């Protein structure tokens, strides 16, 4: 791939209908890397969009049963919104398919770098692939398999007749009629190891006779194996890519990227009074900030990591510089710090956070990703993400002290065990606010605060159904308001993530 500076788009222009040739299918195995020219801005925006998509895939996968109607409809909505291919047959899909192709390969560069990143990337890509594959019709499947050289041959009617009873006996739950109706494919047995191992398939001459409905598992397996190998290969050629200084910062940060509003521009600056903070910390702060606030009150001090994380959060909720200075000073003086020392040392760094010193960068409050992934707390620190960094036993005790129900606590701990820290925090939100569905995807502590405030001031209608947890009516009313509230911020995001701002955005480290 070649890159050009600036916003001039220089993608290969194919004449009229020939564009369809390049991407004859809405789905692909990503076997061939793209060879066209692309602008740096398109490179970035494609990557960010796909990352957003994969994060949605991840969240939907935990919140809903994969393949259920809600899961599918929400995923389709997201694909449409982000302009990725969502309809298998859409003719006008060239741009979406191209974006799909390019963005996948760009993210490979960012996500091949560690075992953990690779695992995450493969998991989400597989879930995405599974969704798109299961949306294909039988004919499209056949076309697709031929296209990717997984031309598993469907067995002919004659062949099926001769081994019909064997097929019935080897596929559990299949009657004779079902066998006749369903398409069977001859797959080399090593592509269907699980089915062979457990003897749930008819095996003859080294070929497994796979019914159509089991084909997904096999194709997915193939996809996973290919992707895994490809990532390993990509990792090896990464040093060359990273030496391109235009790409290095972007790739490094993509894997830690937060892709929502950055809460640096607050509409309600100055609307919070210092007296309110204690109460707010219980009602509307996410657990990490509640914990930091309490530690500050208890110890009259916070170390640097805590001051950064909490200080920027406070800025994000609307505290002015003057308020911040007063807030920190009054607390620190109660501790071991005298007023003079505060003015000389700590005050400087607070002003720095507000962009009034040094580089004059207006620092942005930390996103969940950043808090979870960087700067883990050590002894004597109170920053970080409690769901990530606290011992589960201690976390449990803390939640119990907040009067959270045992069932609720178990749910939270389960999510923590599954390493879904942000979802655990979402669950915490739901338990604290006594709602069934948080209604948004949590990515940022300030988002937690903003949503909480909105909820408490009656900005959203959430009905809690005591008897029926899956009341579609209640869900619909909550869904109606959420898109409305999230769209404006999304369009802000699109405007914000432009080349210039992106660079500033990432240099605050």
């Amino acid at each position: 791939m070649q890159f050009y500076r600036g916003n001039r788009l220089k993608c290969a222009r194919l004449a009229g209908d020939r564009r369809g040739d390049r991407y004859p299918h809405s789905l692909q195995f990503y076997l061939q890397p793209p060879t066209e020219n692309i602008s740096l801005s398109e490179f970035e925006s494609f990557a960010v969009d796909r990352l957003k998509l994969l994060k949605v895939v991840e969240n939907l996968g935990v919140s809903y049963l994969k393949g259920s109607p809600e899961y599918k409809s929400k995923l389709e909505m997201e694909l449409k919104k982000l302009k990725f291919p969502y309809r298998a047959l859409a003719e006008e899909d060239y741009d979406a398919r191209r974006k799909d192709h390019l963005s996948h390969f760009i993210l490979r560069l960012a996500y091949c770098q560690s075992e953990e990143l690779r695992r995450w990337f493969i998991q989400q890509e597989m879930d995405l692939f599974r969704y798109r594959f299961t949306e294909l019709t039988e004919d499209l499947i056949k076309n697709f398999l031929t296209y990717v050289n997984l031309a598993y041959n469907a067995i002919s009617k004659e062949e099926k007749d001769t081994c019909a009873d064997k097929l019935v006996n080897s596929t559990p739950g299949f009657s004779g009629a079902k066998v006749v109706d369903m398409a069977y494919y001859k797959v080399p047995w090593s592509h269907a190891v699980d089915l062979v191992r457990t003897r749930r398939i008819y095996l003859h001459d080294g070929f497994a006779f796979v019914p159509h409905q089991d084909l997904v598992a096999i194709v997915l397996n193939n996809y996973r194996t290919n992707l895994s190998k490809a990532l390993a290969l990509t990792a090896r050629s990464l040093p060359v890519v990273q030496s391109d200084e235009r790409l290095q910062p972007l790739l490094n940060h993509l894997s830690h990227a937060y892709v929502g509003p950055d809460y640096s521009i607050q509409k309600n600056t100055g609307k919070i009074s210092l007296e309110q903070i204690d109460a707010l910390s219980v009602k509307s702060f996410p657990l990490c900030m509640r914990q930091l606030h309490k530690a500050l009150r208890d110890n009259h001090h916070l170390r640097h990591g805590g001051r950064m994380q909490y200080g920027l959060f406070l800025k994000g909720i609307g505290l002015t510089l003057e308020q911040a200075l007063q807030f920190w000073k009054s607390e620190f003086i109660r501790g071991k710090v005298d007023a003079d020392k505060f003015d000389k040392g700590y005050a400087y760094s607070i002003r720095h956070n507000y962009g009034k010193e040094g580089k004059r960068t207006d620092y942005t409050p930390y996103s969940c990703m950043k808090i979870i992934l960087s700067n883990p707390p050590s002894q004597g620190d109170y920053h970080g993400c409690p769901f990530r960094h606290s011992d589960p036993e201690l976390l449990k005790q803390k939640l119990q002290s907040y009067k959270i129900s045992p069932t609720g606590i178990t749910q939270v701990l389960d999510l923590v065990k599954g390493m879904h820290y942000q979802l655990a925090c979402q669950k915490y939100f739901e338990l604290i606010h006594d709602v069934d569905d948080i209604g948004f995807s949590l990515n940022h502590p300030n988002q937690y605060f903003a949503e909480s405030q909105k909820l408490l001031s009656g900005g959203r209608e959430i009905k809690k159904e005591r008897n029926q947890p899956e009341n579609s009516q209640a869900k619909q009313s909550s869904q109606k308001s959420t898109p409305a509230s999230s769209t404006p911020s999304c369009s802000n995001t699109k405007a914000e993530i432009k080349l210039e701002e992106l660079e500033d955005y990432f240099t605050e480290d």
Partner: protein
Amino acid sequence: MSFEPGSLPDLLPLYYRRLFPFGPYGRWLRYGGVPKSYFENREFSFTLRDDIYVRYQSFSNPQELEREIQKTNPYKIDIGAVYSHRPNQHNTVHMGAFQAQEKELVFDIDMTDYDDVRRCCSSADICPKCWTLMTIAIRIIDRALTEDFGIRHRLWVYSGRRGVHCWVCDDGVRKWSSTLRSAVVEYLTLVKGGEDTIKKVTLGDTIHPFISESLSIVEKYFEDYALVGQDILGSRESWDKVLALLPEHILFFNKKCNSIQHWEHLRKKMEKYRGSSKKVSYAEKEIMLQYCFPRLDINVSKGVNHLLKSPFSVHPKTGRVSVPIDLKKVDEFDPFAVPTISRLCHELDTINHDENEAEENEREPEGPRRSRDYKKTSLAPYVRVFEEFLEEMDNFRKGELLRISDSKRDF
């Protein structure tokens, strides 16, 4: 000619000089068209006198292997995997870089694993009565390997004491990962559970073709082997064991009936049971399978680096040579007719009676006369089976090359 383990140090040198078929053996492990490094990177292990065990032996060519064996006269020879580097230099290789890459897929069926279902013998002992279990095992597994998995080149070998081994040598199969190998064993496994499990075979509602094919094989042998030979329904004690596998206590032991009659009664009662209770029960099939179906050791098969006793190695306790089994005559194979090393050496003596060659002659083997001595002994027919196996592989390989060059129009 009885065998005394103590005589091994005297017999082995003679065996390795005059009888071990190094010619075909070398051809086997060179596998026709593979690069030279394939043999060089193959691991062998030797068990020497006094139980000294040496691993990571490797050789540049079959001749070097032959010389080493003739020099050290090992009690036992094992074959391991083809590695990424020469095994005898593995210490010089960066850790993690020395990897087992290829090996034949192997199976080891051991009569000891059937102790819970055979009455005639136990542990290391075998007799003509229970040997049928090996025959059944070979038939069932071989059918599955060829018909279900599409495998071509299998060498079945008598282990020398209480079981059989199978060496699968297809080019593709030698590259199989541990996952694939385990999968094959799982596919072939029906008897599950250790000492604590009474009922070791439970069939689901539908019977997979692999099971029904295997059952037809078992049925051919069941009456003679289990009812007559093992007499599994002939005494109160063995009767109770069988009864424990039935869904209900449907039949009583009758001193006046023999096993065959009891089995008939059992079948009739089971039919009635199924009719009246409307339940699906394959109890008779499950009994047959529990008593006869092959029992594999997954650990032997799944590891690419697992070492297994070499064909034509001598069993140090019985003296019997690990000889190939002729699949065309598997029912007639008699483990007790397999020559021991003492008998073979004795036969050699008789042959050389007229010739003035001292057995202690340390000179290099003189080509044809020495290397083909096995042909004049009772080892000959077994080597012939081995050679046929090799021929088949050669022919197939040539056929494949022709096919490929034809398609490339490469003359």
